[in-house]
């Protein structure tokens, strides 16, 4: 019976296996981008380069009894009476538990860029060859670019000047040696005493008037050797994009719907930031009237009132006309709503104004969680939406099949997209829809 004290224990497998587990998590994240991008931890982590994803660690599967049998509950212990709530978490679909769940025991740190890179494999820029994207030149200051033989002494390029001088001296000395048959030292001295003039140096040797006692002192800099720096104006090619985030904030847009909007915009904006040097976001919310607001108000504020989408589009059109010249800016507009509009006809005409500008993308996203729908029939017909059918009446749309429960339509010529999404699982398909590699119809 003993207690033994060792000084030199080494961790043999723990670190190695932990690393392996981390690799597997990374791989899982890579494979489950669509789950990860719906995770609210990421969305609320704005401005940071890294995002933390709460993970439970990878599961090890075995035969276990299911939740159904025990009603998803269990036996607990402590003070509490029947009916007391001992735990609460967001319901599925509103955010929260996904494949890689929320609030796990461990955290995986993922570079935002990394997720965007993974997304890049599946996404593109709608209707755009990246080279063609609108860009402008911005003066950046001055820079030295070239070298000239003429200039002012204050901008002399010492190194280049010396280089030229050495080059010329060596050439001259060789020439003198060749012409006169003298040795290297004599040629050098002759060149020096003739003050760099090669012909008088040759003369000096031929006439034997070279003063042998003057020591050789390197080489001379000739006017021809001088080199000057030239400064140029520096410009940068800059591509700019602006995102118009338009949202209906009337009472029916609940927190969970706004969460989906936020999630969608987060990824859209981050994605565009990867593509453009400069990305501007303008938030416009509307009830019966539209107001431009800051981000916090946009996502967390609430208004009551009716719903006129036309007001938001009019406001956006006005801002585009006054602040964002179409030849300088790439313009993306996302309109999010639950589809209820009091005057859909007016809305469509305001939308048409925007469509005719031929901006880069106009995306209409309707958020319809299941609990909004009263019955099966409504679920398939989207009976509560007034705006969507109006748009579909006005223009032709082609339905696009993407995974998940959302529905997507596209009009390629108008750069106009329609989406109906239901829960956070549809965010990824919706992004794929918006940023898929669309090609413009050659006829336009």
């Amino acid at each position: 019976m003993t207690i033994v004290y060792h000084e030199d224990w080494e961790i043999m497998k723990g670190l190695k296996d932990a690393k392996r587990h981390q690799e597997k998590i990374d791989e899982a994240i890579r494979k489950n981008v669509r789950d990860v991008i719906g995770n609210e931890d990421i969305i609320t982590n704005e401005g940071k380069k890294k995002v933390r994803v709460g993970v439970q660690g990878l599961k090890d599967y075995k035969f276990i009894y299911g939740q159904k049998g025990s009603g998803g509950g269990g036996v607990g212990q402590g003070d509490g009476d029947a009916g007391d709530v001992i735990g609460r978490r967001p319901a599925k679909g509103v955010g929260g538990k996904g494949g890689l769940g929320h609030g796990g025991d461990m955290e995986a740190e993922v570079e935002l860029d990394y997720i965007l890179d993974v997304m890049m494999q599946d996404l593109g820029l709608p209707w755009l060859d990246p080279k063609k994207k609108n860009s402008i030149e911005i003066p950046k200051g001055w820079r030295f670019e070239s070298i000239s033989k003429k200039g002012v002494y204050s901008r002399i390029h010492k190194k280049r000047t010396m280089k030229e001088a050495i080059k010329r001296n060596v050439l001259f000395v060789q020439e003198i040696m060749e012409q006169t048959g003298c040795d290297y030292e004599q040629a050098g001295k002759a060149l020096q005493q003739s003050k760099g003039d090669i012909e008088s140096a040759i003369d000096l040797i031929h006439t034997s008037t070279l003063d042998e006692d003057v020591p050789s002192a390197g080489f001379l800099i000739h006017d021809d050797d001088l080199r000057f720096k030239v400064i140029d104006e520096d410009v940068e090619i800059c591509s700019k994009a602006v995102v118009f985030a338009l949202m209906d904030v009337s009472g029916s847009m609940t927190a969970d719907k706004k969460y989906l909007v936020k999630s969608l915009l987060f990824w859209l904006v981050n994605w565009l930031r990867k593509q453009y040097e400069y990305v501007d976001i303008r938030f416009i919310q509307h009830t019966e009237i539209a107001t431009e607001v800051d981000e916090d108000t946009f996502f967390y504020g609430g208004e009551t009132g009716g719903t006129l989408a036309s007001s938001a589009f009019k406001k956006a059109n006005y801002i585009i006309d006054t602040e964002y010249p179409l030849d300088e800016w790439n313009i993306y507009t996302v309109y999010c709503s639950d589809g209820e509009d009091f005057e859909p006809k007016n809305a469509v005409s305001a939308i048409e104004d925007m469509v005719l500008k031929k901006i880069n993308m106009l995306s209409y996203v309707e958020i319809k969680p299941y609990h909004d729908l009263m019955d099966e029939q409504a679920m398939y017909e989207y009976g509560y939406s007034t705006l969507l059918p109006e748009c579909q009446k006005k223009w032709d749309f082609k339905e696009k099949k993407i995974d998940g429960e959302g529905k997507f339509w596209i009009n390629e010529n108008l750069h106009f997209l329609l989406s109906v999404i239901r829960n956070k699982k549809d965010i990824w398909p919706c992004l794929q829809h918006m940023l898929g590699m669309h090609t413009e119809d050659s006829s336009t």
Partner: protein
Amino acid sequence: MINSELKRLQKIENRIYQIAEENGLKFCDIEFDVIPQEKMFEMMAYGMPGMFSNWKFGRDYEKTRTIYEKMGVGLPYEVVVNTNPARAYLMKDNVLALQVLIIAHVVGHVAFFSMNQYHKENDSDIASKLIVASQRYEEYERKYGIEIVEATIDAGHSIMFHSNPWSKEETEQEKLERIFERIKQKKHHKTDTEFGDFFEDDDSQAEIDREKWNHKVYMTLKNKIPIEPQEDILRFLIDHSRVLADWQKDILETVRMIGQYYWPNIKTKYMNEGFATYWHERILRQLFRENLLNADEHSECNYSNSLVKAKSPYSMNPYLVGSEIWEDIVKRWDKGQHGKEWEEIQDFDTKKEYDDGSMKGHDKMMKVLRTSNDWMFMHNFLTNDLVRELKLYLYVRKENVFFEELVITDKTANEIRDIIIRSFSHSGIPKVYIKDGNFENKGHLLLEHEFIGAELDSEYAQKTLEHIEFLWGDDCILHAKLGGQNKKYHAKKSQLVGDFNMEDLEYAPTSETS
């Protein structure tokens, strides 16, 4: 750890052994290693020195570390390996009081291992077997790549506890004979009652028919794999899979061995932790009385003890529930509060105050310790009074649009007790049998879950079946219940791993396990 402190600890350690022996605990030698905290986390994750490498242990290691960082020092971590001599670990940076608590607790565990019948046949040599095995596995990783070694270990782990160490070890031939005899018996039994007349006379034709029939049954049985539904899934796969290389079988044998090693622990977790907690509390009190621990140290111990016995709103704490049941047993048998006579006392106060001075508590404890497992422990000694005293409740998950809530139900103590007891049947591990190794004559594997009131989790069942498919190398089908309906899970011959399987495994060199 300072030398003087180590000396003092050794002195207390010896006294702990004496106290334990004075109280009738029997235990083998214990060796304690003092190790740094990182090593402790590793020991907790791997469970045993020499355990082979796998990402799951890495995950657990990382989890333990995170929890430790969040909770800070003071958590009494313990790892005991049930070998002979038993091996246990102390964390270097812990204060002396905590070390004393852990030593006292470990003595309880080792006594439990030594005295409980389910731990009798434990492989005391497992640690050294594992060290050699993990060296072999490193070699396999180098030779065949980490992916396939990992896939094999993962698949093995998924069905690790489906090898019951108490089932009879029988050769295929013995099994065949046993079942053949049973069927013949049945047949004869039938002839005696129903068709007795036909076989009464000593007709030679009947004799021939009987021989023919016997032969047919025998041959049918011989071609049947498995002959009868087999519970030991790993054993079956090792013996009958056509795609496993010898080195993979080597891994699976080890995994099976580990599963069998852990089975007694699973079967007696509450008893064991409760027993160790019961005794460390008493030993610490005694040490304090004898001035071997000062008041500060004793309160330090009490604080750690309160962490050990903390109530969890979402689960049962085996340290708390287990020790309280032991306390209750000792109290009731000391006072004679058991048996029909006592049960029938109507007056509440009389019943509660009843004391016949029989002082049989300790004897009863030792008897229960020797013969019981958790299911019996709960069934016999978790009384409705205890359910109320321990404030055990049952909660369910309720979902509305925005939230998923866990809500306490209004179940009575008796209902809660029944549900707890049921959860201990077969130690909470579902019974899944191999039914047919050549299902529908396609070489598919058919498994069946024996439904005893609770259904399998469908996601886990599907993924586990895919693990089995990897080892079997062909389609696997599982019959189970889901939502009250019969459900057929199907793991198709996997394209990715399956192809890899067929080409790479069959031709893998087979001289590894010599």
